[in-house]
């Protein structure tokens, strides 16, 4: 039986917590992706209901200070938080994997340069980077993506580099070198497919970090700009009315927590499913 179907089998036999995470994640992704086309109401329609109205059958999450229905705004927030983080992390994963493979395989100068660069990025607090980037680029989605990339790039470089170091000395890589394969060919044909598992695991962690960073930046007003909403900017909006309309902070905060937790739970399951492959054969 191949290792891959074993891993899939383990994933399916996962525990209730993983299942909960998976269902939550799929639901949130569905809402985020298809939100604009779902009959949830218009997130930007002012005075749809009372100002700062409490949750009711008509307005599940209540209304905000402009009388906007808060539920479609949270759905819009999921969309921008998820999408922004996912775009940033995917771009970062591609760049980080290439750099990590180059560092691990080429060694010497390339390794020194890339690994030290990753260390410097890693040592840099994400929020300080966020303030700097926002100051240079101006607040907005572009700077949010940039900050998420800066914060998660070292995660990919480090993991891919260490996995590559383990693979680069193996027989099939040496055999390809002796057969005259180019460096690019070795990286794409022999290294990339074998580091993908580690990249997938790292991707989920980076995604949750990305969502936290995006929310933090938007909370500080450096990320998504009004009238668009992200979970972070909704939290910021709600924090002004915490005592009189706590549902705004509670609903957007709960959804953000659920989103990050479900991404982490699914990430754990992916890691558990992939890692036993390193085990030794029976007897």
């Amino acid at each position, binding site marked *: 039986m191949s290792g891959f179907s074993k891993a899939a089998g383990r994933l399916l036999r996962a525990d209730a917590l993983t299942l909960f995470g998976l269902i939550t994640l799929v639901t949130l992704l569905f809402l985020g992706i298809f939100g604009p086309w779902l009959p949830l109401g218009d997130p930007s329609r002012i005075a749809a209901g009372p100002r700062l109205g409490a949750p009711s059958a008509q307005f599940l999450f209540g209304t905000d200070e402009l009388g906007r229905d808060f539920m479609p705004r949270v759905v819009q927030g999921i969309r921008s938080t998820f999408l922004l983080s996912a775009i940033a992390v995917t771009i970062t994963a591609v760049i980080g994997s290439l750099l990590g493979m180059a560092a691990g395989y080429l060694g010497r100068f390339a390794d020194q340069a890339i690994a030290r660069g990753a260390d410097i990025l890693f040592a840099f607090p994400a929020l300080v980077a966020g303030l700097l980037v926002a100051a240079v680029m101006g607040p907005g989605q572009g700077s949010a993506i940039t900050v998420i990339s800066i914060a998660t790039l070292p995660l990919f470089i480090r993991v891919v580099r260490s996995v590559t170091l383990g693979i680069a000395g*193996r*027989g099939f890589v*040496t*055999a390809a070198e002796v057969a005259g394969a180019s460096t690019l060919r070795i990286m794409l*044909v022999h290294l990339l497919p*074998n580091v993908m598992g580690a990249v997938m695991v790292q991707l989920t962690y980076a995604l949750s970090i990305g969502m936290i960073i995006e929310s933090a930046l938007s909370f500080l007003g450096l990320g998504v700009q009004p009238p668009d909403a992200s979970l972070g900017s909704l939290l910021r909006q709600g924090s002004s009315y915490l005592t009189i309309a706590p549902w705004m902070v509670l609903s957007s905060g709960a959804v953000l927590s659920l989103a990050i937790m479900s991404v982490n739970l699914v990430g754990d399951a992916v890691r558990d499913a992939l890692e036993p492959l390193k085990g030794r054969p029976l007897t």
Partner: protein
Amino acid sequence: MEPDVIALEDITVTYRSGFLGGTAFDALRGVSLRVKAGETVGLVGESGSGKTTLGRVCLGLLPPTQGQMRFGGAPFGKLRQRRGQLSVVLQHPEWALNPRLRCGTSVQEPLVLTGMPSSERRERVAEILGQVGLDPSFAARLPGQLSGGQRQRIAIARALVTNPRFIVFDEAVSALDVSVQAQVLNLIRDLQKRHGFGALFISHDLAATRYVSHRIAVMLRGEIVEDGPSARFYGTPEHPYSRALLGAA
């Protein structure tokens, strides 16, 4: 007279640690070695003796610090100019093949690099799998479904597929069970009779080495201390270190 497949003349490899100078260490010191077509030269010695370094030099993976190296009478040049002319079979059957590629893809990779059209490649892969004693259906399998001996056969098929003039076997049977070792050793002997490649058989196992080799070179601390016909290693070799290895075998 046909030139040697590979000829090393007074090869030295020096490793330096630390910046600019630092401490230098000779992994190989003045090593000369020749391998003729159709000949297997065994290379034995403990780890750290430099035998793996010598193997890497012969494969063009490690440029020597000093010394001459000729391939088929001409200067060695770059590995890309030698596509299809040399290959390697290594230890660790579980690492020999890319676990994500089907065996057929692994075996035909050297042919892809020499630019053979894909229709010819498929035929050649089936042919070479037959020669290493495997059914052509193995081409469609993934390495995870194979035993250690089968993987090592696939690795040998990959090494042979371009009809190279020179093959390095680096601890190629060390990780295999006794009965499988015998199968692979016999296979190497038979294939060499058939194809006439020159081979360097690197191993710490003198018993296996003398079984497949025509000549054996014994390495100790970066130097070849004895070089003679393998029959001598069934009796009493000259160098005390060779006798010690024989005692341990």
